[in-house]
């Protein structure tokens, strides 16, 4: 665990390091997530499991984005498109009578990888704002393509009546089983990214984030490595898309609306870019606030403003916005950076 959380600089392990706030918080969060279904069962609150399944799936999507955004410095503003493509792969196959997850999920992942290959091959030749705009443009293209898919519901989306089947090995209609499957996949994805970013491949990815010109001068053909990173991130997010479609039992173009891509970026930046557990922290905080802020506003404002408080609660993002701004301005390393007690530049 210590190594998972320690970035570039190696240090000797010690008890104080293990008890550093960020490690304690992450350990506590993982324990909480592992025990959540038990608590939900005891408290007879199944909604908690539903909510946190969603949190975990979006954390998986954010983790995949972190690979290219946090470690690779590629600000993809169309990452939600892979949620959509992965979701539609599952939805369309279910609609056409292919219910096996052994087929659906690999197709979802491969479709996303191929799409990322095309987008990456074209967009990674550009930098900065142009890169952001091109990734956004491609995502919007697919979004409107989804709107035009009349056979599969078009704008209204497509209901997925049947969960992906796994030959009796897993029952995704069982809320608890599905929750744990998502949790295991998220943990695996975090571990995978950690291995990746510390491997030779990851060194190239991180090197070209900070100084691509120098990377080429010392002999790296950086484009192909960045493209590979872009494809891996897309494929991983495709898996998240397949999970999300199974979770909601529904897929529509709204899943890949550009604001959803923005949400994913917010999760990564809020949690801490280039940090293994940052996207998970970001997803938990953002989605919890999304649930909690309206209720808090309602509770606080009702004694003061009565009926109007309900309307006020609809504007919960007025609080979220400044919060995000504070993190960006004063905690460059996000929540993870705050916990680590150091600012990154």
């Amino acid at each position, binding site marked *: 665990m210590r190594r998972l959380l320690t970035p*570039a600089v190696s240090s000797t392990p010690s008890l104080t390091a293990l008890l550093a706030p960020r490690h304690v918080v992450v350990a506590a969060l993982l324990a909480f997530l592992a025990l959540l279904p038990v608590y939900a069962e005891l408290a007879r609150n199944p909604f908690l499991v539903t909510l946190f399944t969603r949190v975990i799936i979006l954390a998986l999507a954010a983790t995949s984005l972190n690979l290219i955004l946090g470690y690779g410095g590629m600000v993809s503003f169309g990452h939600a498109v892979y949620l959509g493509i992965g979701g539609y792969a599952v939805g369309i196959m279910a609609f056409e009578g292919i219910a096996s997850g052994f087929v659906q999920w690999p197709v979802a992942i491969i479709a996303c990888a191929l799409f990322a290959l095309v987008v990456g091959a074209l967009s990674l030749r550009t930098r900065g704002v142009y890169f952001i705009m091109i990734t956004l443009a491609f995502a919007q293209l697919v979004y409107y393509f989804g709107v035009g898919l009349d056979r599969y519901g078009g704008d209204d989306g497509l209901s997925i009546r049947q969960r992906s089947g796994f030959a009796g090995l897993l029952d995704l209609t069982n809320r608890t089983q599905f929750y744990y499957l998502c949790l295991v996949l998220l943990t695996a994805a975090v571990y995978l990214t950690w291995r990746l970013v510390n491997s030779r*491949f990851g060194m190239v990815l991180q090197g070209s984030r900070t*100084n691509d010109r120098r990377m080429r001068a010392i002999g790296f053909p950086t484009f192909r490595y960045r493209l590979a990173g872009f494809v891996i991130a897309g494929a991983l997010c495709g898996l998240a898309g397949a999970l999300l479609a199974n979770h909601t039992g529904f897929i529509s173009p709204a899943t890949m609306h550009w604001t959803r891509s923005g949400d994913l970026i917010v999760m990564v930046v809020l949690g801490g870019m280039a940090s293994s557990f940052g996207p998970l922290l970001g997803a938990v905080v953002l989605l919890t606030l999304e649930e909690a802020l309206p209720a808090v506003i309602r509770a606080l404002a009702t004694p003061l403003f009565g009926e109007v408080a309900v309307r006020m609660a609809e504007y919960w993002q007025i609080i979220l916005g400044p919060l995000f701004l504070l993190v960006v301005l004063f905690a460059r390393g996000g929540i993870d950076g705050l916990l680590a007690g150091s600012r990154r530049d």
Partner: protein
Amino acid sequence: MVCSPVAAVTDALLRIEGLSKRFGGIVASDQISLAVPGGELHAIIGPNGAGKTTLLGQLGGEIRPDAGRIEFENVDITGLPGWRRSQLGLARSFQITSLFPDFTVLDNVALAVQAHAGHSFRFWRNARAEKGLREPARAALARLGIAGRADVLVSKLSHGEHRQLEIAMALATEPRMLLLDEPMAGMGPDESARIVEILRELKRELTILLIEHDMEAVFALADRITVLVYGRIIASGTPEAIRANAQVREAYLGEQTSIDA
């Protein structure tokens, strides 16, 4: 007196012929022809704006020349991208320190080693634990005398140490030829003297093209010197010949006395 050194040297490691580059109305490289034989330390001097860095940029593959040809080991590299030139053994350092600030010193050099240790589509093993990358990197740091700073973040280094690390990284790519862009820029006299010593050591085994403003260092180190003014070579020859060249004195050195030092 425009020399034509191209014809004189037949076994040149680096050969430049008729290299030209314009930026709008400014001619940054004007028909530059130059041959650097293996084992030579060749210095390029010239006033600010003479086009020295532009020349190096074209040699490194970052700037595409409008006309002309660059050969390295008798291979035409004019159209090759920078990374490919590095793979062929042509390494460059940068005038403006250009490193990876959030990596440690050792990470930086290990990255340079990695660039020349096969492809990097290796996704699993911890690169920081690979002896094959770390040990050559430590060796390169030791040669530059900054082995003691291996585990420090680059952002914490002094300016002089940055410059040393720049050279260590170029060295770690095991080049046949080094292109050094003002390695002594902004250094104190002690640090400069140290770099001179290091370069003297390196020139025994490497061919070096050196751009430098420090005349004392240039005349102490160079086997041959080329003088560039407004993108044109006005003279090329041994330090003695350059020192005696009236045109060089007039065009570039003028009132400067450091050339006589």
